[in-house]
């Protein structure tokens, strides 16, 4: 009799403890939903406000004082050129640094210093990079408020992302592959060039895409170096009709980028400009989300396909 009562009590106790499991699982789902709903609301808000403004004219017009005639031509051209410079510097530097740290670096204090720097730089607020660029690139090096200065700034900003991705990809390659290559008499660089780099390429690519998506959306450092908010001309064309057909004058040109254009329109009081901001923001967010989606998909496939 007493035994049966105890059993009932214990069952009650278990049930009440188990209830907490369900409550917490629901709470966790709810918290996740807050994040998911915010992202959805942000996307839908930009889409509702911005899509009516999207047209070919919007892409091929310069900014204007009249909101209905303003467009993002100079902004997207500026963004593309700045990204070109950023990728040109960030990819070789980041891959080189990652390769050095994984394959070459001896275990000593120099390596420790480099590693500590990378972890710290990843946490430095982006606006501080803007101040670095303002003091160093714009004034000390005399690059001015140019595409080159902006590209270099963003390259430094995303460098830790590329380095970390490279290191993770290189570290995932089994030691046996290196040993096999060395056993055949390969030098360290031959092993890197013919084995390490090709096998880690998909992982590196994932990191580069994420880094570029981050650079496209960065506003604060580019504002700090003094990018203008109202640009009604395009940088000189990189390809010309005369010999040597390539010109690098565009590197020194003043510019604006998509997020700055969006910031400028957002901070105006007129609602018509807000629609323009939403349209620019919609393009920007679709681009960054698409790039990140691509990177996540690449990583997912990678994890499934590779069997060393």
């Amino acid at each position: 009799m007493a035994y049966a009562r105890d059993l009932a009590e214990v069952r009650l106790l278990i049930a009440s403890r188990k209830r907490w499991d369900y409550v917490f699982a629901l709470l966790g789902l709810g918290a996740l939903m807050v994040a998911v709903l915010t992202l959805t609301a942000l996307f839908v808000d930009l889409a509702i406000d911005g899509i009516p403004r999207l047209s070919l004219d919007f892409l091929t017009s310069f900014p204007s004082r009249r909101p209905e005639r303003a467009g993002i031509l100079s902004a997207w051209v500026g963004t593309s050129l700045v990204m070109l410079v950023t990728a040109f510097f960030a990819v070789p530097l980041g891959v080189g640094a990652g390769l050095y740290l994984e394959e070459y670096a001896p275990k000593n204090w120099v390596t420790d210093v480099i590693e500590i720097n990378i972890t710290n730089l990843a946490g430095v607020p982006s606006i501080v990079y803007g101040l670095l660029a303002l003091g160093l690139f714009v004034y000390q090096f005399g690059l001015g408020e140019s595409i080159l200065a902006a590209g270099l700034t963003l390259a430094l900003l995303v460098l830790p992302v590329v380095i970390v991705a490279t290191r993770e990809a290189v570290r995932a390659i089994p030691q046996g592959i290196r040993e096999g290559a060395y056993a055949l008499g390969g030098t360290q660089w031959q092993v890197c060039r013919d084995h390490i780099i090709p096998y880690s390429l998909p992982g590196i690519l994932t990191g580069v895409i994420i880094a570029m998506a981050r650079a496209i959306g960065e506003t604060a450092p580019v504002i700090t170096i003094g990018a203008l908010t109202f640009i009604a001309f395009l940088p000189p064309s990189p390809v010309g009709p005369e010999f040597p057909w390539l010109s690098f004058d565009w590197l020194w040109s003043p510019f604006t980028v998509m997020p700055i254009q969006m910031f400028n329109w957002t901070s105006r009081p007129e609602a018509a400009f807000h629609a323009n901001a939403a349209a620019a923001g919609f393009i920007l967010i679709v681009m960054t989300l698409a790039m990140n989606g691509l990177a996540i998909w690449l990583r997912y496939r990678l994890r499934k396909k590779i069997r060393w």
Partner: protein
Amino acid sequence: MSVAVPGEIRAAPPSGAMSARLAYRRSRVLREKAIESVLFLAALVCVFTTLGIVFVLVSESVEFFRQVSLWDFLTDTQWTPLFADAHFGIMVLLSGTFTSSAVALAIAIPLGTIIAIYLSEFAPFRVREVAKPFLEMLEAVPTIAFGYFALLFVTPLLQRLYPQLPGFNLLSAGIVMGIMIICYVASVAEDAMRAVPMSLREGSYAMGATRFQTATRVVVPAAFSGIAAAYILGVSRAVGETMIVAVAAGMQPNLTFNPLEPAATITAYIVQVALGDLPHGSIGYQTIFAAGLTLFAFTLVCNIAGHMLRRSFREAY
């Protein structure tokens, strides 16, 4: 992947002439050294970036502190660097930064912790596979888009609940910023919890504990230093966030701890000055470096503390 036959081996004379072989070997060693040095220089760029940041911030701030005493900088209660009657009290900007970060953390820390516990201890595999990329996406959204969202979606929403709320306020900026850093706090905290050895959980379950008891009494205490690192890194994110506050909190310096008011943060002030056209070398130009140095010093301390906590946690298991 075809195995590349190194061309240099074919180029070496088959006769075994020692000098030619030695010359070949030397050139090979030299080339290897050269490549290693180039890669080393690439790795050094990070060190030079840090040195560059410290050099620029300190050298411009030294100029600034020649004209403004450190005491005034820390204790003055007004921030009017561009007025005729100039005051340089960083407290004013710090109060805005502090208030918006506090609002952000009040959202990010509880929700981030709950999400981390849920994903690490409760969520079925499928949910985790879908949720983690989604959180990464949230982190990837350009902050200017969050700024737009805070100013033109969240603020009007809050004004319906509380009509006296001004168009620019720290509350909506802080809320949006908090949601933005949820994913960051959650992913670092989840990493810490997943690093807790399975045997601890198995021991707890064997004693008859439920999932909730195991999570809160075994996993969370075991992962505590890792979770603390997630919070500290979240603080550093919130303090350094720029565009959301610059757009949604207004750029008026205002010594307040009331989130319902507009106020400028350190970062928003830097943006405001950069948007204007201040001559290089003027006191107004130097203020942004002094403000930036304050910001950099604070985030540096947070980052170092966070990484040390994380590392000590990794060593424990």
